[in-house]
């Protein structure tokens, strides 16, 4: 049992922390947000140069063969700096689809563009009715010759507005809520029949609602088994949840730091408001919530390698519950302890709160995961 980072992992942490400390203060972030697409191509290139976009891919595939801990380090750092660039959608989600389900030809075709930063991806999964059920898929993929024709609508597709390539879940067989008969398809974003309606999200990222009308793709578009890809989807989404947990820990860590610094300097009644016990105890409770979340983020990172799929899913769901609870408490109390200034767009704290709030509703909220853990018989 060991919670320390290896020498290499510490170097990685120093490298990403250093990059973001230099290039990603709150004012720079505002500039990146104003760029076309809502994030910085220059930062994305820097991430590529430092090898961060190739981190999880095997050396044979041109990557660095890093594991979950490395992704945790990067996502936590990105949370701390409130990074806008589409690392989750491209490296974590699309990357995991290709790593766990991609054929040699698919890896050959797509990984180089991810690793060198020339292409970004988006995962088109959510539908109007599906909410958090990954198996609830109405979008259809009908066989035509060797290939497929995709029809349907996807919503709130993260990075969907900017992505070069989409990864789309679509039903090849069965009814809308059947667990079998679901496929995963690689679709170029500029394919004929793809219509994107992009918009900024509440947390400053960008997403799109995407309509697929008679979109034709070849036989090589399907990742894994086109009639039974749910296990693959669940595995990839679990990895996305783990990454979100780490990002949330970074956000919470920075929220608490920022709040503590603020109450040390803000004066009322002639003294720093941090000298009041009511505020000190609130901050102490925020620290407790943060450490509990940090522990579960580590647990989730380890759990993504569990061989038993059920144990993996339950453990990660448990982590998402803890992160959800801690994030709500720390996010809300950070605003409260800042007082009026916390309500303004100008102050950085509100932006952390907003990102934490959106993570809560991504890939299952606290109640959803609590129910899953409960139905699985618990975690102890």
């Amino acid at each position, binding site marked *: *049992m060991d919670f320390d980072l290896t020498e290499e992992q510490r170097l990685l942490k120093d490298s990403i922390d250093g990059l973001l400390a230099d290039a990603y203060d709150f004012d720079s972030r505002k500039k990146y947000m104003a760029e076309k697409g809502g994030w910085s191509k220059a930062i994305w290139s820097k991430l590529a140069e430092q090898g961060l976009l190739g981190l999880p891919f095997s050396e044979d595939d041109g990557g660095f063969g890093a594991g979950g801990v490395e992704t945790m380090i990067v996502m936590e750092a990105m949370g701390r700096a409130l990074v806008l660039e589409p690392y989750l959608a491209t490296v974590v989600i699309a990357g995991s689809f290709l790593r766990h389900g991609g054929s040699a030809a698919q890896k050959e075709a797509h990984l180089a563009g991810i690793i060198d930063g020339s292409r970004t991806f988006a995962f088109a999964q959510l539908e109007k009715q599906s909410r958090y059920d990954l198996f609830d898929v109405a979008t259809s993929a009908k066989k035509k010759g060797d290939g497929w024709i995709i029809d349907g609508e996807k919503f709130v597709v993260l990075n969907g507005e900017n992505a070069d390539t989409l990864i789309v879940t679509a039903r090849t067989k069965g009814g809308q809520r059947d667990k079998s008969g679901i496929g995963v398809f690689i679709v170029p974003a500029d394919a004929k029949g793809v219509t994107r309606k992009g918009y900024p999200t509440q947390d400053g990222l960008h997403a799109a609602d995407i309509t697929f009308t008679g979109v034709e793709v070849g036989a090589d578009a399907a990742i894994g088994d086109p009639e039974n890809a749910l296990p693959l989807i669940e595995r990839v989404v679990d990895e996305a949840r783990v990454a979100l947990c780490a990002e949330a820990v970074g956000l919470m860590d920075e929220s608490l730091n920022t709040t503590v610094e603020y109450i040390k300097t803000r004066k009322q009644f002639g003294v720093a408001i941090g000298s009041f016990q009511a505020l000190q*105890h609130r901050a102490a409770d925020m*620290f407790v919530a943060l450490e509990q979340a940090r522990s579960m983020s580590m647990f989730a990172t380890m759990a993504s390698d569990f061989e038993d799929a059920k144990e993996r899913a339950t453990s990660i769901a448990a982590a998402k519950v803890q992160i959800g609870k801690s994030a709500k408490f720390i996010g809300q109390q950070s605003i409260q302890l800042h007082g009026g200034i916390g309500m303004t767009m100008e102050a950085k704290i509100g932006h952390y709160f907003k990102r934490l709030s959106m993570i809560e509703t991504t890939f299952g909220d606290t109640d959803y995961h*609590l129910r899953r853990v409960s139905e699985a018989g*618990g*975690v102890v």
Partner: protein
Amino acid sequence: MDLAFTKEEQAFREEVRQFFKDNVPPETRRKLVEGRHLSKDEMVTWWRILNKKGWGVSHWPVEYGGTGWSSVQHYIFNEELQAYPAPQPLAFGVSMVGPVIYTFGNEAQKKQYLPRIASVDDWWCQGFSEPGSGSDLASLKTKAERRGDKYIINGQKTWTTLAQYADMIFCLCRTDPAAKKQMGISFIVFSMKSKGVTVRPIQTIDGGHEVNEVFFDDVEVPVENLIGEENKGWDYAKFLLGNERTGIARVGVSKERLRRIKELAAKVESGGRPMLEDPAFREKLTACEIELKALELTQLRVVADEGKHGKGKPNPASSVLKIKGSEIQQTTTELLMEVIGPFAAPYDVHGDDDSNETMDWTAQIAPSYFNNRKVSIYGGSNEIQRNIISKAVLGL
């Protein structure tokens, strides 16, 4: 980073578990499972079994009878002990005064006291809190006046756990009334059989008798019973209180209680089905399990850190353990109350010898719930813990 236990550690867990299975008297285990009080004999019998095995004072240095285990092994031992469950070694001797004596005591004191702590020939109690000195412990007033080769002790201690069984007490006494609060305190040990010592029971809201008031009326104590230096007692007290950081979360205790909640909730009917299948109850139970899982991991982080970097600098996460650990213990007793519902009410008129088959598992549930309110008060109340976090960790 690797959360798995090694093969050796897993084998150690098996060994410990098997030892408890083979050696904890079944009646002792039953009483603990049901939340009942043990008699003095039951506790001492078990501790002597543990000591014979060489595990009575496991975390002490090897030269004084310790095991030389790693921090992970200590963690595993404690978890298994709490989860079996078996009675924990008497903290006042083994975890509190023992380490103070082997760290600050002289050779004669080590020889005189340490073996008798290990063999439970001496039952120790703790003379810290006073009626006017709870969270503000350093305001204590009990006086020890030096007269020749004796201290004359006058004053009153309170919340003295199991003083009714104690042979010895370690006491914080004011030896320099002129010095500032923390500066004039000494750490003195003496026999509870000394002339002038009076123990008066305090009955707690669960109906039990765990704690006492202890009065000192011109108690004469030889000066060689001073541990360490005169007027340095506050340092030793801080050492003592900081010593047991990881056990305080009592993860094993809460695990065992969750196991029991599930077992009972599967039997009790609610709305025509087992309580365990009630989604609202079930989700509360799951929420508690998840909190406990997080706490277990937090505790392991502290344990791993101690194993690697020594006990010198406390891991900031350790301050979380007391707060969260006590909250979870209390939640588990609330869940048990929910499980038995209206049958929480009957008072346990038969006491610990209850042989009534139908009711014996319900009788202690409400008292245990009442009794567990103490866990967020003792050992530095949770409010004091928050003061510590805000000052020592957050720098407020």
